[in-house]
């Protein structure tokens, strides 16, 4: 080993012979992976570290539409010190009758138990008839401290502007407004049936495990409809969101690594080729194969370790950098410290890919007979050996296993890597096809065209590798951009066109007639739909309590928290029965429900099964009468659970309404009238929701495009590297052409033809594959119409061709500008 180390050191002194490309590809690819894993881990670590302050306690117990009973209160008291908050959506009315929807919380004196309420300087905690408003809310209302606002029936003085409040959600549809709990009653918004949430945040005593305590509480009051969130699961929504995005970015980064692997493989081959004479001479002098193999491996490993270190250093800086640059788009600020485990994972990926990509070329070089080299034979490799495939294959499988194992959504990663492998295989086939075509066409056209085309099939040409390297990144970009633009299009144009302009919540059932009158008067001709609603969680399925279920199936959102419930005689528009039957309008019998077909499938429920929901602490068991396919895109009232008449009517419920005015008519008048005359009613403007969702989607789309752009960058580096690796044959062609009278422009044209044909063919195939993939995702996974931004999509392959051709030409220039006389001597 010492001998090999010494030889490797001496050998490296003479230059790294092609390993420069390995260094570049590996460093970039590892930087990408390390950045993604570090950022995910930093967000996770930030959630874990700040769970208590995000949640405002160790444990939060919430219940809808009611307060805790005395038994429940006693149990809460037993768990530790607690603080009670009542929250609901409410309209805040500012000067000039400007109204903005807010998440209104009435807080007790103990609030916040943990974490800090960050008030703008000069602000004080609201007391009496005072309110503290979130920054965004104050800005939209145009108010500041000292100004008056109206909430429901109460008038409040703004005591402070809240910069930050303990919150479990990174994205809130409504900004916060905080009043004293006693002042909440002044609003008169809390009525029986109002969609309130009462939350108890608890600082548990040291001996209590918050998670276990939460579960125990839910078990004890199983029919109470309690939801428990512990500090470890604070920001659960943000974490799920961050996980999903992280997962997707990791998949893209892994594709970039795979592309980088192709460059590493080219680099290792170039390195092995450059070392053929050295290996032959060493063998001639008595070196064993093992020594030579160790020497080469040490050299590759040394460069790879440097590359991995560079990549990890860049990746380690990513969380802090991204926290500064993209703070507004992250659900919460990532932990800025180095994430060692995430870096170790990225480093391991880099190592495995290096082994997979460089093993073959190194092994071939070691096994070549020295006589072949000393005779001056061209390297055509020793006999093919399937044994040589074992180690690279094992390394690839280990990398895939690591990706799947470390993933939070293993199925997604498994499908993703499978899909990527499929695409890679398809592009490799295209590369083989392109080579064959070049072989057939290389006698057509003038000498420049012939040379350019023939170069695609020249010995050592990287056409197949480049097809994969460029095609994979570009097809990913086209696919994701296609999905993103289709989604955005749907969100920004189709949904607002189809959806009603206003959603109204908390309409007291007793005020229905008055409500209808106001709408008829102030929004004449508007389509009005009203449905009753209550809230309550699903607490049992076929008699098995949700709390006792060992695992909640992935995607079973219907079991997560409170669900909106309704009852209806008729099948709502946009719903289609796919199993069972809808009940007759005059149904009067045992409780029946109709369930969303997708939710039923995830939970394994069918018609005839039983579902128990808790309404105001009372369990209600109902038989599933039918399953419905819901068109969620309509943004109308889409309830996963609809009861048959006769069960929920007796509970205090409120009404929900949608108002869709005729084209061009504003809803401002009706909104103002409702705020004045029915102050307890909250209006949600669809435009605002859409804008907020669009902003998130645009940010996501941008992140994904940056990541895929990065994969393309690696592909372009591989292309440039392979051009550099074939510099000898390029130099020979260019010098010989100059010898027989070609100008520099003509010599450049040869290269241009080669690169343009290659990148155009790959770009066309990648465009087709990307569009097909996007179409399939949008059509079948998202169930939307495929309507991407074609103008933008078409630019992508054209830009990729321009970038690839330019990079390749720049990489080729040194070979083309070699002095002919000197080059001829060297040839």
């Amino acid at each position: 080993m010492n001998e090999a180390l010494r030889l490797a050191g001496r050998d490296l002194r003479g230059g790294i012979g092609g390993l420069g490309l390995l260094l570049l590809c590996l460093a970039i690819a590892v930087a990408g992976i390390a950045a993604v894993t570090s950022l995910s881990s930093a967000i996770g670590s930030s959630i874990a570290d700040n769970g208590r302050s995000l949640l405002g306690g160790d444990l939060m117990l919430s219940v809808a539409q009611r307060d805790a009973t005395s038994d429940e209160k006693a149990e809460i008291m037993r768990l530790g010190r607690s603080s009670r908050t009542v929250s609901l959506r409410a309209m805040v009315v500012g000067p000039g009758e400007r109204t903005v929807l807010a998440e209104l919380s009435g807080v007790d004196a103990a609030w916040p138990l943990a974490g800090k309420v960050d008030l703008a300087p000069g602000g004080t905690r609201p007391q009496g008839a005072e309110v503290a408003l979130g920054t965004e809310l104050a800005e939209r209302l145009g108010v500041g401290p000292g100004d008056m606002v109206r909430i429901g029936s109460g008038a409040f003085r703004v005591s402070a502007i809240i910069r930050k409040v303990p919150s479990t959600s990174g994205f809130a549809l409504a900004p916060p407004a905080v009043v004293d709990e006693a002042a909440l009653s002044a609003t008169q918004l809390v009525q029986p049936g109002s969609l309130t949430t009462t939350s108890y945040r608890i600082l548990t005593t040291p001996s209590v495990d918050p998670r276990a305590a939460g579960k125990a509480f839910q078990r004890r009051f199983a029919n109470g409809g309690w939801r428990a969130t512990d500090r470890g699961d604070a920001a659960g929504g943000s974490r799920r969101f961050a996980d999903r995005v992280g997962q997707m970015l990791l998949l893209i980064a892994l594709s970039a690594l795979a592309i980088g692997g192709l460059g590493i493989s080219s680099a290792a081959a170039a390195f092995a080729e450059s070392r053929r004479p050295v290996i032959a001479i060493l063998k001639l002098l008595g070196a064993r194969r093992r020594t030579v193999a160790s020497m080469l491996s040490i050299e590759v490993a040394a460069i790879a370790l440097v590359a991995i270190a560079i990549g990890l250093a860049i990746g380690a800086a990513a969380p802090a950098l991204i926290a500064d640059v993209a703070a507004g788009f992250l659900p919460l600020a990532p932990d800025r410290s180095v994430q060692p485990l995430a870096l170790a994972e990225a480093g391991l990926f880099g190592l495995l890919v290096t082994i997979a990509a460089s093993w073959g070329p190194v092994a071939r070089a070691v096994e070549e007979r020295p006589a072949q080299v000393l005779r001056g034979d061209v390297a055509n490799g020793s006999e093919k050996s399937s044994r040589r495939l074992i180690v690279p294959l094992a390394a690839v499988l280990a990398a895939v296993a690591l990706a799947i194992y470390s993933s939070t959504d293993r199925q997604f990663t498994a499908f993703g890597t499978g899909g990527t492998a499929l695409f890679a295989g398809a592009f490799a086939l295209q590369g083989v096809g392109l080579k064959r075509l070049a072989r057939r066409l290389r006698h057509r056209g003038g000498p420049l065209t012939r040379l350019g085309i023939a170069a695609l099939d020249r010995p050592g040409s990287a056409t197949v590798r480049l097809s994969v390297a460029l095609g994979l990144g570009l097809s990913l970009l086209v696919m994701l951009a296609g999905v993103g633009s289709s989604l955005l299009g749907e969100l920004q144009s189709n949904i607002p066109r189809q959806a009603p302009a206003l959603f109204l919540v908390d309409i007291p059932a007793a005020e229905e007639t008055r409500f209808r009158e106001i709408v008829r008067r102030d929004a004449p001709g508007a389509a009005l739909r009203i449905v009753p609603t209550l809230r309550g969680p699903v607490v049992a399925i076929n008699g098995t309590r949700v709390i006792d279920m060992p695992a909640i199936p992935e995607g079973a959102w219907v079991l997560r928290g409170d669900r909106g419930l309704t009852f209806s005689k008729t099948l709502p528009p946009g719903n289609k029965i796919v199993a069972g039957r809808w009940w007759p309008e005059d149904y009067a019998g045992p409780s029946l429900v109709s369930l969303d077909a997708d939710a039923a499938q995830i939970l394994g429920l069918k018609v005839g099964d039983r579902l128990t929901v808790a309404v105001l602490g009372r369990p209600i068991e109902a038989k599933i009468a039918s399953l419905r396919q819901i068109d969620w895109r309509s943004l109308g009232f889409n309830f996963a659970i609809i009861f048959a008449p006769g069960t929920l009517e007796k509970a205090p419920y409120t009404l929900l309404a949608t108002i869709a005015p005729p084209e061009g008519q504003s809803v401002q008048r009706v909104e103002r009238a409702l705020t004045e005359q029915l102050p307890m009613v909250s209006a949600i403007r669809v435009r605002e929701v859409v804008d907020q969702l669009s902003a998130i989607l645009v940010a996501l789309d941008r992140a994904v495009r940056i990541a895929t752009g990065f994969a393309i960058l690696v592909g372009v580096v591989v292309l440039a590297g392979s051009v550099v690796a074939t510099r000898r044959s390029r130099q020979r062609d260019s010098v010989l052409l100059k010898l027989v009278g070609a100008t520099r422009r003509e010599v450049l044209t040869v290269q241009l033809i080669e690169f343009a044909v290659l990148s155009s063919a790959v770009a066309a195939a990648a465009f087709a594959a990307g569009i097909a993939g996007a179409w399939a995702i949008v059509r079948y996974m998202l169930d939307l119409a495929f309507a991407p931004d074609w103008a933008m999509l078409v630019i992508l392959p054209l830009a990729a061709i321009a970038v690839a051709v330019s990079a390749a030409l720049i990489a080729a220039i040194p070979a083309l500008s070699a002095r002919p006389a000197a080059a001829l001597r060297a040839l």
Partner: protein
Amino acid sequence: MPEPLIDLHDIRLTLGRGAARTEILRGIDLRLDEGATLAILGPSGSGKSSLMAVISGLERPTGGSARLLGQDVVDMDEDRLARLRGHSIGVVLQAFHLLPTMTGLENVAVPLELARVPEARDRARAELAAVGLAHREGHYPAQLSGGEQQRVAIARATAPRPRLLLADEPTGNLDAATGAAIVDLLFERAGAGNAGLVVITHDPAIAERAGRVIRMADGRIA
């Protein structure tokens, strides 16, 4: 009186910088008239090939004046030099240097096509036939013997009907019998086109066939 094909005065060529700076050619005067033949003899490192590079316009001298076919080439840009070669100077090299991705016929046609000569392929075919390789026109360089490859190289050099033919050790990579045949062919093709011929060689027997012989040593004409 017609201008000479080659007219060199006090040609100097220095390569490398600093400690690696080497004077390759140290004041060469040389003249070759239309249709004349010249052999340049000399040991390795004497500067023969560098002189050939200057004569073919592949290397720019660092001093002196050089006129080729009546044109001053010292300040001529690379593209004009390439065009001059393409039309009027044919070069044959020791290592053949054919384009490996092209057939014999295509290799011969390249200079004609670059010069936009009409019916380039027909002329290339005729040229190949003239060097006795009509039956091998569809073969790639790798499928041809060394002698055959050099014949293709000669056909490529003579196809544009150059006024000057340059050959740098044209038999260096060939056995004696094949080499002799190649030399015959070279002189025959130069004669047929009334082209001036410069042959660089180690072999005095080849040199004897030229109308004039010069010897080089240490960058100078001895």
